[in-house]
Every structure is written in structure tokens, then in C-alpha cells.
């Protein structure tokens, strides 16, 4: 569906929330709007256009530009329509001779301090100042241009993605307000008074300021003052398509704006329900990787990883892979091959990979990278509530009174949701943060956590149990809710368990490292502060007790009746764009799509009928089992789509050994990633811009991904999987991903109402979407839990084996940063590296001093499985005894250090706790030296493929 470029519609002021209807007349047109609506918005809704410059429906009305003046019968003067609320019976005139003269008078003043270079201006044709001058009929600037002006003001080009050209600024403050109201960063201010009022980023330039490059100010700017460099370089777009960000689990809706097949800009889509017009630096700007020269667009094969790559045709590559897979199976049995699918790919692609494994490979050796992040969420929430998904829509936080964030860092990892959360906090919601580290939310502009409980890494369950203990023993629980909605027996035994003295905050203080009094106060706040909502992330799941912690969280919510309505709930912050979707699509070895166990004959029968095959009823191997089996020689062929296990999975040296042991590794990716360096077949992947499909975000929202440029390799990923299946003799026959979705819908009860037609109509849908919820389900478990009665699971705290000891006295925990994305394959190939060019080790000054480490020193980090070297950053964000790093750069080798400890229920690795020793060193680690050598060699082998071809 091609849409010619035009700016997104703007109603001038935000929608008023559901007041009574008010009837009024604008230019003789009758209209009814909710009380609290501005005259400007009412006019827009009536189809009447009032000129405006300082107003935008993403910002509170401000009233500074004065071109939106109107006349209202019975009122003196000329009120500004943006700041005047409607009243019953109001009669508004928007076009009169007096208004025309006034508006022209104001525009004349604007233009008297504006360069007259429209024809060479980057936003020529997409500029509200230009449009407004036209609308009001400005014909002359009688003041001349010799007066005081700002035309010589200097540009700020420090940000890699946009330029600030203050000579064109009309001081409407939209940027400043966007940074405050929408993003919540407060990086911009207006400095000076009167004519000297100028937009300022503080003492330095944009890059050196607090700016997080979200682009909200650039969006908001009505002139060319803040403009994307891509627009400056390439011109304004000519057509657009709506799609979904492929980075994090927020799943922001975007308008891809194009010239031909070139994306010149990604603008956050105002009707995107997950983001409502906001974005972060990744989705907004970091899309250049899609056309990076490192992209591999031709299939390649080789017999061994010591050989150079050979570029071959699609057909040859697929036949090569199929032949080898079949041979392996003949020699080593049906179970000797398997596949790993990716949360980066679309629902349709993930579905196809599991179908290929179950129907084509004839086994269930399918797993997904969600194994290493949110598998405990699936297990824990399914057990307690009955569905493996978060309970709320993002908008639910707007009505939360108490927000508890545990093991998540939304402002870095889920920035657009983080901004929404911050807005709610600025409105007065209370905040509890449970995190070993002082994350930004603990103390941000105009935000301060009521309680920060700096838990020892690995002790989440202890903290959650202690909170439940306080609530239960102080009788702060919601007995009515429990009686009505929860399972009586499980509650009774859980209550006995949690009330026991060993779960008191005082008794657990040594394990948690948290002051019992603060913990008690936080528990009381959570239980009695109104609507309370929990947001958690990988800091909860990636532990040996990850699943236990998820269940403890669900227990807390049930205990206090904080589930089943707006403003409350249990909300996993999903890491990657399609973690939720890839889990939904049956990517686990024991589950068919829709989380239905393989052992259920009825479900299996449905799939067997639809796919015309016999399915193996035995669950297959999980990722760690695959690697162990590879080292044992039982597992020899792996199809790995869009997932860089060599970098992202724990205990790198173990993984590398397993990969080296494989007979045939088929990697499908857009880059020659770390895993591909061990591969025999390389199938070029397509970026999200090159294919159709759907992603499902952390709030169960299914959104369309739309192809805006042809796949560079000629095939979208689903086409590659289909062709691979065909080469294996397993026929699939889809002409378009919509047909895959139709099949998913026909086989999955929670998806039965989903279709591309409905998605196009509604923009997005939150599953379950079926006969009983034809438009989807924003809030789950409203009247009863999916499993019937809520189940209180006993959540005994068992300390991890990874304990600080004499040899490894510090606890290492990991996380990520705003500008980089996971293993960094994409973001490192964009200008985002301007903000985070290397991973560093955060260490408390006290621990640093003990080790003679100063800021910027190289430090060795040694765990019982390996060691690596990073530079040190001294900070009090981490408490003594805890060190922290990010894992965005392969050379950092964070996972060389992490162990193969994992969650007892799901094998999700314990990335978040590793006992380590830190010491000053002068050289990279042995692994790093080997890694760099190997990396050079593999690049060289790739280069030879390219020059040979």
C-alpha cells in the first residue's frame, strides 16, 4: 500500500480524556467534543484548519506563537485557540478580516528574523513556517531585513543523526517541551530573555549534553532548525509505509519514509499504539546497518571452517545444506540435527522454522534465543496465572499509582516505555526500584524513587518473599480478591510458607543486602498505595532461580489483588522485538504454537492433519542440550537463523567448542556474525525493511512489518526457510506471509481472529484475538485467570552456587545501554557508536581502590570459567561488592566469564550473577587475543570469497 508522503496529521493539542460531551459551533459547523478539548482541536475535528506553530497534539498547549487566534462570540479580544478550552454553546470564528490581519502581522514579525533561503532549505516543502506563511497570505516584510536578527547563529552538528541550525529557529519551544514532556530527559532549555531567548543544550553541544538522541525534538520542530542529516543529505521523502521497529520489545510503530527504495527517515508513527509517536535513538536513527557494506547478500558454502568461503547460487547452497543434513541423519539418526530460531525474525518466519524442524527434520530439536532471556517468564506466568505473557498494555501504566521496577532498566533497554513511565512518575506515581545498581530511574530529572532496594545479585527471590511476608503478616493482602479469584489450597500452603519467620526481611537481610526497614516500607507501599504495577526484566529471569522469581512476582500481584484491571499487573519487559512472538509460535522443543504441550494428542493431531505428517511426541533438545550433545558427537547439524549464539550465549569457550564440533552449521543472518565464523553454509538474511510479516511486542501486540525495499539477497527469510524445506523434500507453498498467518490462526486458538486484513484495519492487535475477543485483549485475566483460579506457587529461596568467595570476591552482573542493542551487530554498524564505542566494567571506587585500579585502567575479570579484559569505570551506581558491564561488543567477551549455571526450570542462563575477581592488567586476555586472531582469519576467508567471485 503506497502512501505518498505527507506530514502526519496533527490536531494541535492532545485529546482530552473522556469528559462530558460539549457542543459548540466553529465557523457555523456543529461539533461535539469531550470537555477539556481545546478550541483548536475541536476545529481540527470539525475539519476546520486553524494556523498554528507552537502547538502539536503530542505536547501540552503552550500559547506562544499567537497565529492560532480566533474570535469567540461574547468574548473580548482574540483568544488563542490552542489554550482555550471549549465551552457549551461557544460560537467560534476562525476566519475574519481582523484575524487575517493579526496573523499576517505575527508572521511578518517571524519572517523578519528568518533567513530567506526556502529554495535551498533542507525542509523546503515540509516546513510548518513556510506553510503558515502561505496560509495567512504573507506578502511582504515591511520591517526589512536590516534589523536585529539571529541569522549568523552557528550550527551544532555534533550529533551524528541531526543538525541544529539556530538561524532558522522561531523559538516555539516545541523541542524543549518534547524533550521534557515526551522524552523526559530535560536536555534542552530556553536561555536568555526577550529577543535573546534561544534554545540551548546547556554548556556543551548536543553530543556532549544529556541528550539521548531520541529525536523527539527533531520531530517536534516545525522548521528546519532541527533536521535529520539524512534529510539534509537526501531531500524529503516521496512515499511512506507503516512498519514496526526491529530492535526492542516495545515494538514501536514507524513510518518508513522513502525516496524510491531508499529509506531517508524513520519517523515514529503517531497511531502506533505501543509508542504513540515517540521513539528512541535505535529505531529512529540506527537503520543504516540495513545497507551497510558488511551485509552479505550472496549464499556461500565451504567444506570446513579452515577454508575460504565460496559464493554460490541459492540453489547450490540449499542443496549443499540439505544433502549434508540428510547424510548426518542417515548416519547418526533423526535426532542428530536441529534448529535455533530467532526473536529477531517475524512470527511467520519463526513459525516456519519450527514447522521445518517438526515436519521436515522429523524431530523436535527446535529452540529459540528466548531460552536465554525470558523462558522463565513463560514458565512462571503459565504456572501461576495460566498464560505465558504479560498482563497489561503499556498504556496501563498511565493509571498506576505505585510502580515497582525490578531487574529492569527501562530508560536504557525499553526507552520509549521508559519515557511513558517517567511521565507517570512526574505526575506523582510512587516508585520502588529493586536492583543491585542505581539505575537512572532511581534519581532522574523530576523523578526520585521512593525506595531503592539495592539487592545482592542472585537474591531477588529472597527480597520478593520478604515483601510478601510483610504484606501477609501485616494483613495488608486483599482477602476478597484471593477468596474469589485464587486457588484456596495453594494459597493456604503458600501463606504458611511465606509467613514463616525465615522469610522475614530481618531474617533474610544478610542474603538480600537490603535494609529490612526500607523493605518493609516498600512492601507496605506496594500493598496499600492504590493501583500497583510490577515491571521486570532480564534481571529477574536470568538467574538460577529465574522462574521462581517470576512466580514470586505473580504471587505478590495476586496477594494484593493487583491484577485484572488497568493500572496494575505483571509486566515482563521483553528484550528483543519479537521475544513474545517467537515463544508464541511454538519455538520450544516441548510446545506447539500457542504454548500447547506436544504430549497433548488432540493438539498434535490438528497439526498432523494440517501438515500431513506424523509428529514425534517426544520433546526435543534445548539449546544447552544441543551444545552438550554436539560435544558428545550425537548432535551434528544445526540450522541457526538470525541468532548469534557464539556471542550471546554464556560460557563462550564451551559454545565455541560445540560449534567447532558440528559437521554442518547453517547460519542465516544479515552479517557474518560470530557464529557464522564457525559455519559451513551461509544463507543471507533480510532486514526488517526487506520483508513482510508481523512482530509481537511485550504487551502481546501483533504489529505489521512491511517490506519497503526488495531483499538485497533476492529472498526474504521466510522464502529461504521455505526453499530449504523444499530442498529437504518437505513442501511448503506460501505465496505471502499472510498465508502463513492464516495457517497460524487456523491452528492456534489465541490467534484465531488474527489476519493481515484485520491488522491493516486496526493497526495492531493484542492477542488473545479470537471469537470471544474479536478486537484483541489489552488487559488479561479480567474476570478470571486463564488457568481458572490463580495458583500460589511456593517460592523457596535457594542461594545460587555463584557466591562471592575468597577467590572470586565480587559479583558481576550485566545489562545493556540505550544506544547499543544486544550483541551490537546492528547498532555497531551505525553512528550509535558515537555514544558507546566500548564496553567498560563499572566498579565501586572502594573496590577499585583496594585493587589499585583507577578510572580507565585495563582490568582483568576472572571467573571460574574464563577471563576477559575491559577498561574500568569508577562509579557509585554499583555498590561495593558488585561490578557491572554491558555486552555489546564481541571483543569484550563478557560471556567468556559467565558460567553455564542456569534456571532450574527452563535452563535460562544465569547471566546476571557471576562470582569474579578483578585485577589491574596490562594486556588483553588470552581469549581476546585468540578471538581477534580468529576474527581476522575469518574476515580474510570472507574477503577471499568476495575477490574470487
Amino acid at each position, binding site marked *: 500500500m503506497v502512501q505518498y508522503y505527507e506530514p502526519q496529521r496533527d490536531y494541535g493539542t492532545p485529546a482530552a480524556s473522556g469528559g462530558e460531551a460539549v457542543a459548540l459551533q466553529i465557523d457555523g459547523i456543529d461539533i461535539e467534543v469531550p470537555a477539556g478539548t481545546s478550541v483548536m482541536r475541536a476545529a481540527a475535528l470539525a475539519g476546520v484548519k486553524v494556523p498554528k506553530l507552537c502547538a502539536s497534539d503530542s505536547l501540552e498547549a503552550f*500559547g*506562544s506563537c499567537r497565529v492560532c487566534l480566533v474570535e469567540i462570540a461574547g468574548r473580548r479580544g482574540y483568544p488563542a485557540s490552542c*489554550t482555550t478550552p471549549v465551552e457549551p454553546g461557544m460560537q467560534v470564528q476562525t476566519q475574519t478580516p*481582523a484575524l487575517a490581519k*493579526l496573523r499576517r502581522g*505575527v508572521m511578518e514579525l*517571524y519572517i523578519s528574523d528568518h533567513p530567506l533561503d526556502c529554495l535551498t532549505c533542507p525542509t523546503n516543502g515540509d516546513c510548518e513556517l513556510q506553510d503558515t506563511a502561505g496560509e495567512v497570505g504573507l506578502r511582504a516584510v515591511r520591517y526589512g531585513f536590516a534589523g*536585529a536578527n539571529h541569522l549568523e547563529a552557528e550550527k551544532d552538528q555534533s550529533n551524528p543523526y541531526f543538525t541544529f541550525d539556530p538561524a532558522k529557529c522561531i523559538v516555539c519551544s516545541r523541542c524543549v517541551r518534547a524533550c521534557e514532556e515526551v522524552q523526559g530527559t530535560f536536555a534542552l532549555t530556553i536561555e536568555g530573555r526577550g*529577543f535573546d531567548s534561544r534554545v540551548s543544550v546547556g554548556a556543551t553541544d548536543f553530543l556532549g549534553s544529556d541528550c539521548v538522541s531520541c529525536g523527539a525534538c527533531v520531530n517536534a520542530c516545525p522548521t528546519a532548525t532541527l533536521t535529520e542529516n539524512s534529510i539534509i543529505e537526501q531531500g524529503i521523502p516521496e512515499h511512506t509505509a507503516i512498519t514496526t521497529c526491529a530492535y526492542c520489545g516495545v515494538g514501536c510503530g514507524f513510518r518508513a519514509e522513502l525516496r524510491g527504495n531508499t529509506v531517508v527517515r524513520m519517523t515514529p508513527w503517531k497511531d502506533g499504539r505501543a509508542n504513540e509517536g515517540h521513539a528512541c535513538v535505535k529505531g529512529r536513527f540506527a537503520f543504516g546497518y540495513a545497507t551497510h557494506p558488511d551485509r552479505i547478500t550472496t549464499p556461500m558454502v565451504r567444506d570446513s571452517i579452515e577454508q575460504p568461503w565460496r559464493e554460490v547460487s541459492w540453489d547450490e547452497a540449499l542443496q549443499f545444506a540439505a544433502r549434508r543434513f540428510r547424510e548426518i541423519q542417515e548416519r547418526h539418526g533423526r535426532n542428530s540435527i536441529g534448529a535455533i530460531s530467532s526473536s529477531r525474525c517475524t512470527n511467520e518466519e519463526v513459525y516456519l522454522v519450527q514447522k521445518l524442524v517438526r515436519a521436515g527434520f522429523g524431530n523436535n530439536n527446535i529452540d529459540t534465543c528466548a531460552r536465554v532471556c525470558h523462558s522463565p517468564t513463560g514458565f512462571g506466568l503459565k504456572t501461576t496465572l495460566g498464560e505465558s505473557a504479560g498482563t497489561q498494555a503499556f498504556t496501563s501504566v498511565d493509571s498506576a499509582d505505585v510502580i515497582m521496577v525490578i531487574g529492569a532498566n527501562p530508560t536504557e533497554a525499553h526507552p520509549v516505555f521508559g519515557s511513558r513511565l517517567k511521565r507517570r512518575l512526574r505526575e506523582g506515581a510512587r516508585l520502588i526500584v529493586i536492583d543491585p545498581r542505581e539505575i537512572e530511574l532511581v534519581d532522574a530529572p523530576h523523578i526520585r524513587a521512593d525506595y531503592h532496594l539495592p539487592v545482592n545479585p542472585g537474591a531477588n527471590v529472597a527480597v520478593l518473599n520478604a515483601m510478601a511476608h510483610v504484606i501477609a503478616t501485616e494483613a495488608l493482602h486483599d482477602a476478597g480478591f484471593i477468596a474469589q479469584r485464587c486457588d484456596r489450597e495453594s494459597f493456604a500452603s503458600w501463606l504458611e510458607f511465606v509467613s514463616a519467620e525465615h522469610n522475614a526481611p530481618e531474617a533474610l537481610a544478610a542474603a538480600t543486602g537490603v535494609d529490612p526497614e526500607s523493605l518493609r516500607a516498600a512492601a507496605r507501599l506496594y500493598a496499600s498505595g492504590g493501583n500497583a504495577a510490577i515491571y521486570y526484566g532480564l534481571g529477574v529471569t536470568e538467574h538460577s532461580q529465574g522462574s521462581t522469581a517470576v512466580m514470586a512476582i505473580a504471587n505478590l500481584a495476586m496477594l494484593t489483588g493487583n491484577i485484572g484491571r488497568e493500572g496494575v499487573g505483571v509486566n515482563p519487559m521483553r528484550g528483543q522485538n519479537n521475544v513474545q512472538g517467537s515463544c508464541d509460535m511454538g519455538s520450544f522443543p516441548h510446545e506447539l504454537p500457542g504454548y500447547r504441550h506436544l504430549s497433548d494428542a488432540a493438539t498434535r493431531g490438528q497439526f498432523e492433519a494440517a501438515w500431513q505428517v506424523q509428529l514425534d511426541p517426544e520433546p526435543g533438545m534445548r539449546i544447552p542440550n544441543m551444545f552438550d550433545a554436539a560435544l558428545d558427537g550425537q548432535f551434528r547439524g544445526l540450522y541457526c537463523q538470525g541468532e548469534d549464539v557464539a556471542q550471546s550465549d554464556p560460557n563462550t569457550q564451551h559454545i565455541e567448542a560445540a560449534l567447532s564440533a558440528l559437521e554442518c552449521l547453517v547460519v542465516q543472518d544479515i552479517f557474518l556474525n560470530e557464529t557464522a565464523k564457525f559455519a559451513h553454509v551461509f544463507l543471507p538474511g533480510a532486514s526488517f525493511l526487506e520483508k513482510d510479516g508481523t512482530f509481537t511486542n511485550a504487551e502481546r501486540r501483533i504489529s505489521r512489518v512491511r517490506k519497503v525495499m526488495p531483499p538485497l539477497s533476492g529472498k526474504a527469510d521466510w522464502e529461504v526457510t521455505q526453499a530449504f524445506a523444499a530442498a529437504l523434500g518437505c513442501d511448503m507453498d506460501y505465496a505471502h506471509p499472510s498465508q502463513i498467518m492464516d495457517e497460524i490462526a487456523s491452528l492456534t486458538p489465541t490467534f484465531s481472529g488474527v489476519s493481515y486484513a484485520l491488522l491493516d484495519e486496526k493497526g495492531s492487535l493484542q492477542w488473545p484475538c479470537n471469537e470471544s475477543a474479536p478486537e484483541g485483549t489489552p488487559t488479561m485475566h479480567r474476570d478470571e485467570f486463564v488457568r481458572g483460579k490463580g495458583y500460589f506457587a511456593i517460592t523457596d529461596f535457594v542461594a545460587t552456587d555463584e557466591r562471592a568467595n575468597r577467590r572470586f570476591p565480587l559479583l558481576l552482573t550485566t545489562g545493556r545501554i540505550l544506544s547499543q542493542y544486544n550483541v551490537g551487530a546492528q547498532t555497531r554498524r551505525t553512528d550509535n557508536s558515537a555514544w558507546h564505542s566500548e564496553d567498560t566494567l563499572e566498579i565501586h571506587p572502594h573496590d577499585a581502590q583496594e585493587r589499585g585500579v583507577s578510572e580507565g585502567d585495563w582490568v582483568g575479570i576472572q571467573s571460574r570459567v574464563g577471563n576477559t579484559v575491559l577498561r574500568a569505570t569508577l562509579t557509585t551506581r554499583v555498590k561495593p561488592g558488585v561490578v557491572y558491564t554491558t555486552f555489546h561488543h564481541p571483543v569484550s567477551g563478557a560471556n567468556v566469564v559467565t558460567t553455564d549455571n542456569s534456571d532450574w526450570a527452563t535452563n535460562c542462563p544465569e547471566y546476571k550473577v557471576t562470582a569474579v575477581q578483578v585485577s589491574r592488567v596490562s594486556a588483553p586476555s588470552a581469549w581476546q587475543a585468540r578471538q581477534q586472531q580468529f576474527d581476522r582469519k575469518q574476515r580474510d576467508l570472507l574477503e577471499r570469497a568476495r575477490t574470487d567471485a
Partner: protein
Amino acid sequence: MSTRYFVPRDATARAVGADAVAAALASGVAEHNHAEIVRNGSRGAFWLEPLLEIEQDGKRVGFGPLCADDVPAILALEAHEYATHDRYLGPLEQHPWFAAQQRVTFMRAGLDDPLCLESYLARHGFEGLEHAVHLSPGDIVDEVTRSGLRGRGGAAFPTGVKWRTVLEAEAGQKYIVCNADEGDSGTFADRLLMESDPYQLIEGMAIAGVAVGADRGYIYLRSEYPDAWQVMHTAIAKAEAAGYLGQDICDSGRAFHLELRLGAGAYICGEETALLDSLEGKRGVVRAKPPLPAHQGLFGQPTVVNNVLTLAAVASIMADGAEAYAGLGSGRSRGTLTLQLAGNVRHGGLVEVPYGCTLREVLDTFAGGTRSGRPMRAIQVGGPLGAYLPESLWDTPLDYEAFAAAGGMLGHGGVVVFDDTVDMAAQARFAMAFCAAESCGKCTPCRVGSVRGVEVLDRIIAREEGARNLALLEDLCDTMTSASLCAMGGLTPNPVRSAIAHFPEDFQ
């Protein structure tokens, strides 16, 4: 038999040498027994400062203006010889300059040590508050409404209506904010009140708090008023110690906490919404209305913002009753008007008269002609945004409606007199330049318009394309008047247009 000497501690009096007079007095009276020197507030007759008053046997007479050298001679006089001194003024109540006034709000000004709580109580202080705490909030607001009191900060908005709005607003926290930013050129009434009768302001604010249900108040004080800061600061502490402020005022069980805050030194911070921003610790920028401060003011809570004089007047209204106050004045302007005579006048100072007399009467009675001795030509009433009035308009009665009808405004009561040497084109330019210097910069008509206004007037003054530029100036004034966000840009055309309309010869 004791003698009390009074030498004002007021900033204006000190600026013209009151401290030296007091010092001379101190060394002079050291030899006399039973002598007490009181540093009182000023009565507001600045042309008589430094003023010395001597009280003996219940009789109090004045001398002024004096310099330190005059002191020994006066001290040498016996009481019956006082009248022979050429600076002898007699009892000041009987001095024609005071006798012609009707002092209500400034009734106590200059009589005592402003910080002496006993003196304040002796002169009916805190009677209004004692009365108010026994009334229901609604009854207090009714009383203020019936008094006809209108805001003295400039906009003359009915105070009772404002209070009613805040009283009826539902909120956990409400505030009383006193606008003591007094930025108008030629005005000093707020400062004089705070320096000479601080408890009256405190009393008025406490009454306002009780009336609308606000337990917290702030005085936003002009940063250039260090003396007023000292006086108010001490007065608040003393009032709190005496139970007129704090957790339980006048044993009523109601709380009112008062804080003094220093202004940001910008004219625009006198505009109430910019003031609130500034109080919140932000840069003072005008907010669009609605929402009104009465609905969403300080920190988003319902807030009464009133001028110093408005709040002070409330104290006497509650003490003496609405009727007494409403009995003064004319038309819809009730009570007394505080004029501040300044500029080119001989007898500058504070004059409190009932609304309704004419400007000419006031000038004739109090101004004593120009200091230069030349004829008066133009008078700017109502501060820097007020119109320049030619002689033909001096008979306009001093009431809000009559003044508005004549194209002028009373504002905060500033009266600045110019003699016939004034260049009205330069004055018009000054109005634009003032706006350019003081604009908050939020809205375009004012931010850019004032700068263009100066440029156009420069061309007019240089006689470049006069007619074309006058027409452009007229359009600009239209735009600023009708399109500005606040009265700063909206009223700047007043002085400009009145200068052109009434003194066209200066523009040709």
C-alpha cells in the same frame, strides 16, 4: 520626663541621609537623659526626608528635610522654640500634605518602629485576623467581596471573586502568594508598606489563608529591596513567635506558614504566572491562561496571587468592616487609591486618597509643581505600560472605568510627571525598548515586535519615511495589543500610541 526622637529607617530616607541624621542625634542626645531614638518607618513624604520627629508630653512635631548638621541646632532648642526653626513642620497629621489625604492602608505608616509588635497591636493590629478566625471561610470571602476591593497590582480584578474561586477549588494544598515584585517605574508603595507596616501584610495574608483554606503562603519580594527583606524577615519571625503565624494561629486551630522568597530581578516576574514559575524555581516565563492560578497556580495547586496593597487592605477591611471600606471611593472603584508621585515633581511621595478625585486635584494639592520649575507637559499614570496623558485629560476622575474610558489606566498607582522639555518620540521609543529589555520572550508579538518597534521608532525619529513607518508602527501596535500573550506586550502600545495621539508634533 522622656523625649522620643523619630528618624525613619526607610530605604528612601536612608538614601537621602537619615542614617547620618540618626547618628548626629545619637551623639547629641547622649548628654540628655531620658531620650530614646526610634527608627520608625517612613510616612511617605519623601520630599521631607530625612524627617525628624520629636515627641514630648504626648505632642509630636516634625522637622525636615534635614541634614546631619542641622541636628545640634534643633537639639539646642527648647520645645516652645521649635516653631522658630525654618525646617519646622508642626504635627505632621496637621501638615496640609497629610491632612488632605485619607490614610487607610497607610494609616500606621511612619508612626512607629515597624517591628514593634506592641505598637502594631496598640494601633488595632491583628484585630482583623482575630475577627476573621471566628468566621467561616465563606463569610470572610463575602466580607471582602462586599468591600468592593479590587486588585492593586494593576489589573483591578475583584479580590472577593478571586478568593471565591480558590475557596471553591477542591485540592489538598492551596497557596497564598503575595506579589511584592513591584517593578513599575516610579512606584514604591509596596516597599513602603513592607518597610513601615510589615505586620499588616502578614495579617492580610493570614486572613487570606484562613478564607480560602490555604495553610502556606509566600511573599515574592523584589530582589532590589534588601531593607524590606530585613524588615519582613524579622517581622515574620516575630509574628510566628507570637502565634500570628504557624501551626495554630490566634489559637484558632488553623495553620498558616509564611515564607519570604527573593525575586529573580526581572520585571516580567511581577506578572503573576511568570512569578509562579519563578517561585517554583524555574525561569520566569508567562503561562497561558486558562488555567487560572486560582485553579492551577503554584505547583499546579489553587493559588491566590495578590499584590501587597490588596492583602494589606484586607486587614483593615476585616477590622473595620466591609462597609467602612466600601463607603470610600466612586463608581466601581471602592476604598482608597495609593498614588506614588514621582518624576519631575517637587513634592514626591506616597499619597493615599479615595478613588474619584481627579488627577489635576491630586497634582495641585500634593505635587507642588515640577522640580525644574517648568510647566508640566505629560503625565504617565500606571507605570511603564500606562498611557501618557496630556493636560486635556488631567481632569479625568481617578477611577478604573473613567481612566480606561480616557485611554489610560491606573495600574499600581504610579504617577510620573514630565515637563515641557520632554521628547515624546523618545518616550515612545523608550516604551518599546523597555518591553524589549523586559520581555520574557515567550510570545512572538512581544519578543520580536518590541525589537522591531524600537527600530521603526528609530527611523521615525530620524525622519526616514515618516508616514510609512508611522503606519507600520500602528500595525505593529495592533498586533502587539491583540496578539500578545500577556499584558507586557499587550500594553506596551499604550504609551506609544498615547504619545503619538496626544503629542503628534513630536513625531513630525
